[in-house]
């Protein structure tokens, strides 16, 4: 009996020691707040960046905290209200830091001024895919199909109020068709219904569609960046297909507004150098992310531009939860 117990303890200690070598240090750890739950690309990215930040700061401990709730607003607010001493930073996709200000009327904060930029680490784009019940091979054929089958023309997205939802609205407007939006809880459940033929069209992150596309279960008809996706170079962009819409998303690191510039510069340099390393770049690519690694100034500019870019799409979607 006792032997089992000791064995358990020993193994537990082993795991604990492996998991966070930095627990041994007494210094207050740097906290990377990720405003969504664990599981998924963004969370894995947060942990990957945490490892690199730790290495870049001579082993200073870095922990990732999933502060979840309210579609990312709770986590963003946590960071905005944190002490601006560089001990709390935010990793967020575009929505919570550049689009929520258009979606929610009484947000209570302005992500453009209440957050200070550190570095944009990666970009990614969206794709539109059709399931086994839709014969279309090109975007034009899809539009024809949708016009012929108005009672079937629905598209799924990973969630109401997520960027693919708004991008679908942009496409419907550009093509002059009426697509009914159906929100899911994440890409996975939307994909299950797409592969199973329950829903004809899904708009979501290209990398989420990739495996099914390669296996021939679904077809990606177009991707949303201005240039072709390196994941599926044979698939044309929306622009090439004759629909003048572009939309990309990204992950970036921010700090509370008053965080000193020298701390942000330091983190920015470490993160930018890390994501530009070839092995990280390659890792990113399998996750469907294109490594960027910008300076704080560049990120600030991108944040403003993209916030302005998405405003009309949000308005056109009619998605306006009264908070």
């Amino acid at each position, binding site marked *: 009996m006792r032997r089992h117990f000791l064995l358990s303890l020993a193994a537990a200690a082993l795991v604990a020691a492996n998991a966070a070598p930095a627990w041994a240090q007494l210094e207050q750890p740097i906290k990377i707040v990720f405003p969504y739950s*664990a599981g998924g690309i963004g969370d*894995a990215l947060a942990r990957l960046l945490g490892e690199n930040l730790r290495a870049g700061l001579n082993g200073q401990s870095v922990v990732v905290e*999933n502060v979840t709730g309210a*579609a990312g607003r709770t986590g963003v607010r946590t960071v905005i209200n944190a002490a601006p001493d560089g001990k709390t930073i935010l990793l967020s996709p575009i929505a919570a830091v550049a689009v929520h200000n258009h979606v929610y009327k009484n947000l209570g904060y302005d992500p453009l001024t209440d957050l200070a930029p550190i570095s944009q680490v990666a970009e990614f784009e969206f794709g539109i895919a059709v399931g086994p019940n839709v014969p279309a091979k090109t975007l034009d054929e899809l539009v024809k199909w949708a016009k012929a089958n108005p009672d079937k023309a629905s598209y799924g997205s990973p969630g109401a109020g997520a960027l693919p939802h708004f991008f679908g609205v942009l496409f419907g407007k550009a093509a002059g068709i009426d697509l009914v939006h159906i929100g899911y809880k994440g890409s996975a459940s939307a994909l299950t219904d797409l592969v199973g033929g329950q829903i004809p069209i899904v708009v979501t992150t290209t990398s989420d569609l990739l495996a099914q596309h390669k296996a021939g279960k679904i077809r990606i008809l177009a991707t949303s960046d201005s240039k072709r996706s390196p994941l599926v170079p044979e698939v044309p962009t929306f622009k090439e297909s004759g629909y003048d819409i572009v939309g990309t998303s990204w992950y970036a690191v921010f700090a509370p507004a008053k965080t000193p510039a020298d701390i942000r510069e330091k983190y920015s340099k470490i993160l930018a150098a890390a994501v530009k390393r070839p092995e990280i770049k390659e890792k990113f690519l399998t996750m469907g992310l294109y490594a960027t690694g910008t300076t704080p100034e560049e990120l600030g500019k991108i944040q403003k531009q993209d916030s302005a870019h998405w405003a009309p799409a949000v308005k056109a979607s009619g998605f306006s939860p009264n908070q």
Partner: protein
Amino acid sequence: METLAHLAVGFEHALTLQNLGFCFIGVLVGTMVGVLPGLGPVPTIAMLLPVTFGVPPTSALIMLAGIYYGAQYGGSTTAILLNLPGEASSVVTAIDGHQLARQGKAGLALFTAAIGSFFAGTMATFLIAAFAPALAEFALRFGPAEYFSLMVLGLAASVALAHGSVLKAIAMVVLGLLLGTVGQDIYTGTPRFNFGLEQLVDGFNFVAIAMGVFGIGEVVRNLENERTRSAVASRVRDLIPSRDEVKAIVAPILRGTALGSMLGILPGGGAILGSFAAYSVERRIAKDPQRFGKGAIEGVAAPESANNAGAQTSFIPMLTLGIPSNAVMALMVGALLINGIVPGPNLMTERPELFWGVIASMWIGNLMLVILNLPLISIWVKFMAIPYRVLYPGVVAVCCIGVFSLGSSSFDVYVMAAFGVLGYVLVKLDCEPAPFLLGFVIGRLLEEHLRRAMLLSRGDPSVFVDIYDHPISAVLIVVSAAALILVCWPAIGKRREEAFRE
């Protein structure tokens, strides 16, 4: 024959010293987080994800999988000993398991749970090895209409969970359904019944509610008067069930395994329904349903087998299609992606050593869990001898930490406290908390799929009974109707008798 060849490849990779080590660490950590109430596999795996960065992907997945099904083993421990289900799937285990523990049969209940889980795990592993692609195809035929009808069947069966008044059971289910509507409307984003609180935008957290109603409620109730607990059998040989007891658990384990395996394949909610369904079925077919809720061993054997079988088969969509069916699977997909592997329909042919290695490791892991858990039982049952004044402050503290770890939110801790009070009130009113929790779980899924099906059909309700396009849904609706009539018949019959007498 082909299956055997594949399994041979799998065992070849799973039986290396390194992979055996990772498997062991996985199931050990899994057992520990399963035993600690509230602390589930999701935060644990997330925390351990960086460890897997430098590890070969097969080993990483073997360890993470071990944590997941290990937690299913551990989860029943506190449910039985302290009436504290740490996971949704062990809620029903608490009903009869804790009663058995009160009668001094904690060892028997834990033994049954372990053996049931092991058998279910073994069967489910072979099911995956032999039929994974076919089963995945079946899962894909479940669209919104089918899920809705499945949830309707779940509701119809939920009344069977109660062992008192049917009326109270229905009231509890409805209360659960209503509380499930709190939070953001997933199609329009409009927040409902949240009183302007941002913390309620996503609705109540299931784990916080379950631990409040069961765990905290139990603690509060025991503050009234310390109920006597029977002396416990702590020697291992006292734990071995008698011949009659073995006879009583064999059939429920088989039925639980079958039900859990089927429902576990369905992404989103299937695994939770497994243990509820298994319990309901046992109660329905038992010769004397009165024993349920008072310590029926079948009430432990069936749901525990079902939840472990479901935990194994829920790997099918991820392994065969690359589509994660829950948060734990999503984490595993993340671990694979970081290692440069894109899980998808081609995984089986491109990385056979990974695919079959993980499957083979599941059986090895289940064996390790049984060997690990049987001796631990005699340590766990000693918990029953700890005086309440020492035990309960510890239980409350661990609950608070566990609930806080869900989303780093102190609000969830308050929710747990409030539902602890509700749990106490419900017990005083002789209302069962299990139908309430089932209603809560089903309510959200019911609404999500009903509205999705209606959006897709442009408001035509006939999709649910369309035999040509949705045969599964039509069958489920018919079975639900039959189940409802069956439940209501005695009541109707009785009333007619009374009317005649007058």
